[in-house]
């Protein structure tokens, strides 16, 4: 019994751009199978749609009809093509509101090797015919497509009508005696597709190479905002292989606070507007955030229809971090310079005021105040010395004039002056275990003294009240060794690798509001290296740090 299928024959004019968009947006999770392996996927689909028009026209001409297909005729086209080209696809129509074409293998496998794309194209052929003849079309792939498993369904959703309701369970078979068109034209088109695919592949390979060398991470997002293409540079930016990003939504990588902005960039692109250098935070695989300048532009088909958004992401994390370190440094340096100046200036004013008012001051008190001024002036001098040294090092102008010295003596003198400094201000103690014999080294005394003093300062600064600092000196083969250990706040493991970076300060040092400029360790290591020595650190956060200094002996 032949069902009444006239309700399917109502012609509906379909705006091609709209259809393309719907087609792409319905791809969803299938991007990986189609567009992911194939940046030309959209083109493949487009070719499939053009082919569908050619095939449809050929059948209509052959049958002498000038109206939309009936569902029966549509079924005939499918079965006929299946026989002619040995394809494994069939019409399944359990739901009258849908036409479902099942494609379980690509008939053109031996013809063109890119089976997922071709399978998709086959689906587009049937989808295109159905859409033009029956109305709104939505290609939905019900099975993930992977290489070697090109099976998929295409369901073409139609309008639900009472007539459609009545035809539940109906299966469609064409009248096989009706003639079929020549498929030579179709095969010729297939060959064109293969060539196009290959050309696009070559263009893509060249493009990818150029882009890779340019150092930019590039991606394409489809109409549904999911990423349909990503190049290899994403590995450098986010630690993610380009292929892994396929099918991801930008929301998965953009910082929550930046998502509205990302959405805006994306929407603007679909309105044909470009975005240049908008800064967004993107999440690296390791959980950290990267600052990236995003440029976006619409990706158009030849006819101008926007089918996606091309994104370029330029990593500026290092620049921003450098800027932040410099800003922090300036803030801290300004604080460190202003503090002793404050005391010198105010204390001098106070003394002048007292002396001019009362004309006399208890000599002991006067001495104490002057000592304070002197101490702060020394601090200022040291600080400016450090600043000068850092700028010399950074300009590559640091030179060392070595002379023979006993490292033991140097360390002892440093410890002694620190003890004197501590005696009236803090409850720290310094324990010194020195090597029994002299440690002959060739050094510029003031520089190494600066290093040891700096490390002792740190040990005291980052230790709690009553903390014990242990200093040892020893001869270790051809090396004179100094160790300085404390029971202080220690250094977080994540900060250790950056500890000797100029202006870098460990997170617990800056957050704890410990004063410091962030170049003491950088300066110390550089000075030791200029002497042929080295400086290493071992530390456990919350337990303490151990700094080991090595200098070549001069024996």
């Amino acid at each position: 019994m032949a069902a009444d299928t006239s309700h399917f024959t109502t012609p509906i004019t379909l705006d091609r751009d709209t259809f393309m968009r719907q087609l792409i947006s319905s791809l969803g999770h299938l991007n990986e199978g189609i567009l992911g392996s194939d940046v030309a996927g959209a083109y493949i689909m487009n070719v499939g749609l053009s082919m569908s028009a050619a095939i449809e026209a050929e059948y209509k001409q052959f049958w002498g009809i000038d109206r939309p297909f009936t569902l029966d005729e549509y079924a005939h086209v499918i079965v006929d093509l299946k026989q002619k080209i040995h394809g494994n696809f069939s019409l399944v129509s359990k739901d009258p509101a849908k036409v479902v074409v099942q494609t379980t293998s690509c008939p053109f496998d031996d013809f063109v090797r890119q089976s997922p794309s071709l399978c998709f194209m086959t689906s587009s052929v049937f989808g295109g015919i159905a859409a033009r003849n029956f109305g709104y079309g939505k290609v939905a792939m019900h099975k993930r497509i992977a290489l070697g498993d090109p099976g998929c369904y295409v369901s073409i959703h139609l309008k639900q009508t009472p007539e459609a309701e009545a035809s539940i369970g109906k299966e469609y078979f064409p009248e096989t005696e009706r003639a079929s068109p020549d498929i030579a034209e179709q095969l010729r088109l297939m060959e064109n597709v293969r060539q196009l695919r290959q050309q696009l592949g070559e263009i893509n390979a060249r493009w990818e190479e150029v882009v890779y060398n340019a150092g930019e991470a590039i991606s394409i997002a489809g109409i549904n905002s999911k990423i349909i293409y990503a190049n290899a540079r994403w590995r450098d930016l986010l630690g993610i292989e380009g292929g892994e990003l396929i099918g991801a939504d930008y929301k998965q990588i953009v910082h929550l606070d930046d998502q509205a902005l990302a959405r805006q960039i994306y929407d603007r692109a679909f309105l044909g507007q470009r975005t240049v250098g908008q800064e967004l935070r993107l999440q690296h695989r390791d959980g950290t955030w990267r600052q990236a300048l995003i440029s976006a532009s619409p990706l158009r088909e030849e006819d101008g229809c926007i089918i996606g958004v091309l994104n370029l992401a330029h990593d500026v994390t290092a620049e921003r971090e450098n800027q932040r370190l410099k800003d922090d440094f300036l803030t801290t340096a300004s604080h460190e310079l202003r503090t002793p100046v404050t005391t010198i200036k105010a204390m001098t004013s106070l003394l002048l005021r007292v002396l001019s008012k009362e004309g006399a001051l208890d000599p002991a008190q006067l001495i104490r105040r002057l000592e304070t001024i002197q101490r702060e002036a020394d601090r200022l001098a040291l600080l400016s010395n450090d600043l000068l040294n850092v700028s010399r090092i950074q300009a590559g102008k640091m030179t060392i004039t070595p002379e023979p010295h006993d490292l033991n003596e140097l360390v002892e003198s440093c410890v002694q002056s620190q003890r004197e400094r501590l005696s009236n201000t803090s409850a720290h103690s310094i324990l010194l275990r020195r090597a029994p014999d002299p440690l002959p080294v060739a050094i510029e005394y003031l520089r190494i003294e600066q290093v040891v003093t700096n490390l002792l300062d740190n040990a005291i600064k980052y230790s709690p009240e009553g903390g014990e600092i242990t200093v040892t000196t020893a001869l270790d083969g051809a090396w004179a060794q100094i160790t300085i250990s404390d029971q202080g706040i220690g250094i977080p493991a994540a900060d250790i690798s950056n500890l000797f970076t100029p202006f870098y300060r460990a997170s617990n040092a800056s957050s704890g509001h410990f004063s410091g400029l962030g170049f003491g360790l950088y300066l110390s290591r550089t000075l030791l290296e200029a002497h042929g020595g080295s400086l290493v650190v071992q530390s456990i956060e919350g337990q303490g740090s151990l700094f080991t200094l090595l200098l070549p002996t001069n024996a």
Partner: protein
Amino acid sequence: MRKTVLVIEDDPGIQETLEMALDMEGYEPIIARDGIEALSQLDHTKPVLILLDLMMPRMNGYEFIEALRQRDMFPGIPIIIVTADGRARYKAEQAGAEGYIIKPFELSTLLDEIKRLAQDDFYSPAG
């Protein structure tokens, strides 16, 4: 009786300077090295004014103001922020500080501010 002024400052040189200045002007200076120490000082002293540094270990100036607020002691005791951070004025005002002095300061500026704000005794009964 001399009015008490609480100085919260981590730098020994500036502590000494402020202590001397306050003493000379007839106030009773009390020194705390950071916010936490200051809070415990406040358990048994009643200053008429607080001189507050911003960058300090353990508890910084803003955190200290917040802690005071939670103890219902702020607003109440006037606070002069004495900081090396020249860009903090807006933040200091927002935090509710009545005075703001940038280090290094002119002694006379500091003394004028102290004189201006150390007038009332927050702890005296009204009237």
